[in-house]
């Protein structure tokens, strides 16, 4: 996982690519949306950075910012992990949600933050995701979700497992309202998140090289005859196997999402 992590910050001016290890000039790196100009590696983004890079300037309005995790099982070290998650991500949970404009289109948007407890889905993530779909259904808005998660959050036990069902049911609401749902798989999109709302999008887009899969690599290898392919559980592997529509470099995401909205939304929704 180290290799895929955020770029090493050596100084204010210089950063090191976590994949090819080349030293990069920070302003260039930021301008390239943290994609390495040498090897093309897509470094992880904070949820807030992701949303601000995606939507029209000054249009993001956060929703449900008042939700905070509880510790319903009194699980060992959970309180401490939550505290660390806030410090690492600068957020109070593993997802940031809201409404915004994307090239003029009104959208509901959410972005998960791997820095907050591995982007894991507990009650708050489940609730915010469900509310995104419900908001989309009620207000007839498309939903765009950026996934980045290791899966369900162990520390909330069975309650976390139920979030898979809850978010899935909410996708159904949006579907019946006839509104589009686009998922973007970023590094990593795994397990309980992949096996619930993430895989149910109308169109699935993935960033190059993102880890996308069900079980951990070691578990998968143990349960299989023969060696897994070299690109096993990458966005490219899932694309080859028909689980991902498009692999889109970060720079191309905004135009791609715009095109999809243009295709799915009624003409009245255009040209605002």
């Amino acid at each position, binding site marked *: 996982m180290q290799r895929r992590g955020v770029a090493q910050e050596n100084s204010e001016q210089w950063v090191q690519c976590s994949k090819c290890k080349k030293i990069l000039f920070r302003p260039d790196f930021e301008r390239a949306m943290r994609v390495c100009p040498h090897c093309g590696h897509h470094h992880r983004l904070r949820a807030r950075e992701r949303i601000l890079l995606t939507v029209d300037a000054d249009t993001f309005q956060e929703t449900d910012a008042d939700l905070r995790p509880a510790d319903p099982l009194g699980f060992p070290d959970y309180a401490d992990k939550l505290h660390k998650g806030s410090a690492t991500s600068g957020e109070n949970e593993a997802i940031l949600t809201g409404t915004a404009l994307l090239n003029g289109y009104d959208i509901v948007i959410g972005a998960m933050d791997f820095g907050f407890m591995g982007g894991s889905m507990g009650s708050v993530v489940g609730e915010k995701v469900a509310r995104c779909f419900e908001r989309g259904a009620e207000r007839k808005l498309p939903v765009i979700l950026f996934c980045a998660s290791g899966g369900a959050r162990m520390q909330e036990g069975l309650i976390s497992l139920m979030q898979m069902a809850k978010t899935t049911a909410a996708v159904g609401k949006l579907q019946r309202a006839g509104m589009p749902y686009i998922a973007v798989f970023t590094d990593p999109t795994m397990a309980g998140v992949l*096996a619930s709302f993430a895989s149910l999008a109308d169109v699935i887009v993935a960033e190059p090289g993102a880890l996308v899969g069900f079980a951990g690599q070691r578990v998968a290898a143990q349960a299989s005859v023969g060696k897994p392919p070299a690109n096993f559980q990458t966005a490219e592997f899932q694309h080859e196997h028909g689980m991902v529509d498009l692999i889109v470099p970060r720079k191309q995401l905004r135009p791609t999402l715009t095109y999809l909205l243009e295709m799915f939304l009624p003409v009245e929704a255009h040209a605002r």
Partner: protein
Amino acid sequence: MMTIFDFEKPISELESAIAELRQLAAEKGLDRSREIAELEAQRERLLKQIFAHLRPWDKVLLARHPKRPYALDYIRLMCENFLELHGDRLGFDDPAIVGGLAKLGGYRLVIVGQQKGRDLKERQKRNFAMAKPEGYRKAMRLFRLAEKFRLPVLTLVDTPAADPGVESESRGISEAIAQSMLTMFELTVPTVSVIIGEGGSGGAIALAAANRVLMLEHAIYSVIPPEGCAAILYRDPNKAPQAADALKLTAESALELGLIDLVIPEPLGAAHRDPQTTALSVRTAVLQQLDELSRMEPDALREHRYQRFRQMGVYETV
């Protein structure tokens, strides 16, 4: 082959003593009925004592007990009739998931369940009840069949997990699980799920998005296997018993947390000591749920299911 767990050892010692005495009495033609009755009373007392203080880890062992009744046992013991149907219509028939058309106490219904194997050969064939994408796609096909002919659905959940292998990944195991849940949510017929053994994370919830979710007394339901949790939490899979405590994976905890609707009691000494009685209890409980749900309108059933899961989650608001 008898499999005995630590906490069952004193019971099984008594049971062998009773069996020996019975044999001796029969061979020699002696009347040992008083001694046998005394030992049986002792066994009963011991069972009560042991089963009154089961720890979550004991329940994990019971839920995985190799003699525990499996889905097809329940189907055989509780249904008047069952016709198994096969295949996902996409090229596969996964033996880890069984399904078909059943008659149960005046109801015609579709039953889908995960099936473990009793011996080595069957265990391999059933892949230890770890379903592949085609298993969940078979389930979905049967759910849609139920919807079309207005048949209620019963699912019997018993899996350690969905199959995690390369083959399953290649065919979209995650998508299959997600679609299976979504398909259940869209049904407008009554749906009941019973966790009969292991409710193993995504592999289990894929078949448990029902109007009513029941659990057998010694079944478990968990977001992660206790061994996996222990490896993460304590960096030691051998600390699974502690992890089982932390995960609150028992039926009692699930009921307290409001995540299931009913705990179905098992006979003294757990389901494997009396599959017949256990199956009867499951039957009675399922019929009661079906009677209640059958009074609801199709759209109300779907909305009821939505709300059932919608309110699950514990968080604070600032």
